[in-house]
């Protein structure tokens, strides 16, 4: 009897010693705070992304902080700049990890910044949640990196599906921008068209910052496509469309998310796009539509200066908001003892995350690419933007993201093999 009592007493004593340590054993987590690091281009040529990502995240963060936080812990976001440069991104990330001792990092969207950040995250074993379209991030498996895109991989393939199924395209021309954004998109177009046994009637390439597209437009005109798929930045895409129209090319245009900017019509001109322009629209409505009105109202109140600028908010803002909400949900589900590993497995196993502005987003243990569904936007005959309520979802038996043990080469081979067998049938 005495022995039993002694045994339990000893056990209890251990518990008393260990218990206080358990709640605070993770970096970036204290009794009343969870620190989240943030890096994005706040200065430099890509600085229209940074404030969007920050504002979206802060909207989600302020929401939860005003409601009392997560288990009495308020979220604190520490903002750093990466100027869209990989070296600076790593400097920012290292500062956040070592000096600010953050629990996790939220970042985006420049491809090289997020890839370098991801390599660092794997080394330092810190979760990295990225808003970016860089498919390279998930083409090899990284335990600590998550992406909400939509990745160029998914965008390009769904754009092909849309063009063929919705626009009944028979002759597809493709335009893409050289660089980490456009190139995977262009390759995605070509690969996906194999499913339908099609090839682009022409492939046209340009560089970021080009202003004269005569050569490209003439090439397009010669090939005479009925639909042109474009994977470029906003300005460049708009300029191509306008110059093509000036030279007499009459085709329909489908652009990636960069084309979902309301002022495209100003640069491309109304005559060129009215009734013939479509773009990926990731949210459940267009930004000026009724379903996004609550978001827009809160955004305008919180960030009046940014909201006054043209094309704010845009899908970077909404995507960052979604990212913030997903992170918060995962943090909540972890309970009071929060660890990085627990956070990761919660994100992976959370299932579908529903929100009022996006179709469901979802991670899986072998798939850290959270966004595979999209809607569409178009300019109608009067040049007004209209939401197209057609949901396109990626549901093939393979995806652009690698699980543990897979690599970029294996998933590419899987896709090509799938199309080959389809062809045989």
């Amino acid at each position: 009897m005495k022995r039993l009592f002694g045994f339990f007493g000893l056990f209890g004593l251990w518990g008393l010693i260990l218990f206080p340590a358990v709640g605070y054993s993770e970096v970036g987590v204290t009794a009343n705070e969870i620190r989240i690091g943030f890096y994005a281009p706040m200065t430099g040529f890509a600085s229209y992304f940074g404030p969007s990502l920050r504002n979206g995240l802060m909207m989600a963060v302020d929401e939860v902080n005003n409601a009392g936080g997560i288990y009495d812990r308020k979220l604190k976001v520490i903002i750093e700049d990466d100027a869209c440069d990989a070296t600076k991104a790593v400097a920012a990330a290292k500062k956040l990890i070592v000096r600010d001792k953050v629990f996790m990092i939220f970042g985006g969207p420049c491809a090289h910044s997020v890839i370098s950040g991801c390599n660092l995250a794997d080394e330092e074993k810190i979760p990295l949640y990225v808003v970016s379209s860089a498919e390279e991030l998930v083409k090899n498996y990284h335990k600590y990196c998550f992406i909400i895109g939509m990745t160029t991989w998914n965008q390009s393939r769904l754009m092909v599906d849309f063009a063929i199924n919705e626009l009944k395209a028979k002759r597809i021309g493709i335009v893409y921008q050289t660089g980490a954004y456009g190139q995977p998109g262009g390759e995605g177009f070509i690969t996906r068209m194999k499913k339908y046994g099609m090839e682009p009637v022409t492939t046209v390439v340009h560089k970021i910052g080009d202003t004269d597209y005569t050569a490209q437009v003439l090439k397009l005109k010669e090939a005479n496509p009925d639909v042109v798929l474009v994977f470029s930045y906003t300005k460049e895409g708009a300029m191509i469309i306008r110059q093509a129209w000036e030279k007499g090319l009459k085709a329909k245009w489908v652009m990636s998310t960069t084309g979902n900017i309301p002022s495209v019509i100003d640069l491309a001109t109304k005559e060129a796009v009215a009734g013939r322009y479509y773009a990926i629209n990731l949210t459940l409505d267009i930004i000026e539509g009724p379903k996004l009105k609550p978001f827009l109202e809160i955004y305008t109140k919180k960030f009046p200066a940014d909201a006054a600028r043209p094309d704010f908010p845009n899908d970077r803002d909404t995507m960052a908001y979604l990212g913030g909400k997903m992170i918060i949900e995962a943090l909540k589900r972890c309970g009071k003892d929060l660890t990085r590993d627990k956070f990761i497995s919660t994100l992976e196993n959370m299932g579908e995350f529903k929100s009022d502005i996006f179709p469901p987003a979802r991670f899986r243990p072998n798939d850290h690419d959270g966004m595979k569904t999209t809607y569409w936007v178009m300019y109608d005959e009067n040049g007004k933007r209209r939401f197209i309520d057609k949901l396109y979802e990626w549901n093939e038996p393979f995806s652009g993201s690698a699980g543990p043990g897979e690599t970029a080469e294996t998933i590419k081979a899987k896709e090509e093999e799938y199309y080959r067998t389809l062809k045989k049938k």
Partner: protein
Amino acid sequence: MKWTILDSHHKIWVPLLLVFIGLAAIAPFLDVYFLYILTIVCLNVILATGLNLLTGYTGQISLCHSGFLGIGAYSCTILMIRLHLPYPLALLAGGLIAGCAGFLVGIPALRLRGLYLAMVTLGFGEIVHLVFHHWQGLTGGPLGLKVPTARIGPVVFKSELSLFYLFLFVAFIFVILARNLIQSKIGRAFRSIAYSEIAAQASGVDLARYKTLSFALSAFYAGIAGGLYCQLLKYLSPDPFGLFESIQYLTMIVLGGMGSIIGSVLGASLLSILPEILRDFKDYQELIFSLLLMLFILFMPRGIYGMIRSVFRF
């Protein structure tokens, strides 16, 4: 163009050695972020010193040094990946290949001065940048290239600390090398060219030989820096090798003091650390950085070291 050579007769051995030993000693106690920044400083010191050899000491302007940096970085990486060369060899080879490129650029430079020299180097730099971007079979293009981790013997350069020691050591060697070069016959030839090409020729200096040599050496330095650079992120993309970056390197030596090794070190250090210090200014970082640069230039037209010299009158 006539520059004043600021420190050809100064003894910089001792202070430099002290700094080197000091940094090496405290390094294990510094955090990963601090070490990363210091590593970048060492990198830029090598680059700036090499550039100063060309622009400060020989009076020839170069707007393509980021191109040489890139040639060194890509050569080193590709040699490691394709030919499985060990790192020290690949590093050296990268430097030599960049040096050859420098030599090639030096040839048209023989007939050109001032603006025209600047433009031919600009043209060369842009061509190299575009080649990195478009020749995907070789460089991986804009999607980038993964760089194998360097190892020398049993030492694997994976940790920030090990990388820092590597960079520090190479920087020290190359700065001392530059020092010796400046005080040698070659250095004197360089300086005479900067002062007056006609006078140099009159005293028997073979302009062609020394001008191209100065380009080659300067590019060699940049190439070595490139071979180191690729280890920084273990990931290479064409983006950091453009005109804007070349202008940054030129800014380093003008700010620090042209025609001065100490100036190169000071300028490189300042311009590497300043952006990190300015982080707290958030959205205003860019503006404040440029304003500071403008103030520095207006009040210290001969660079920091030039200012130090005139203040302390030596």
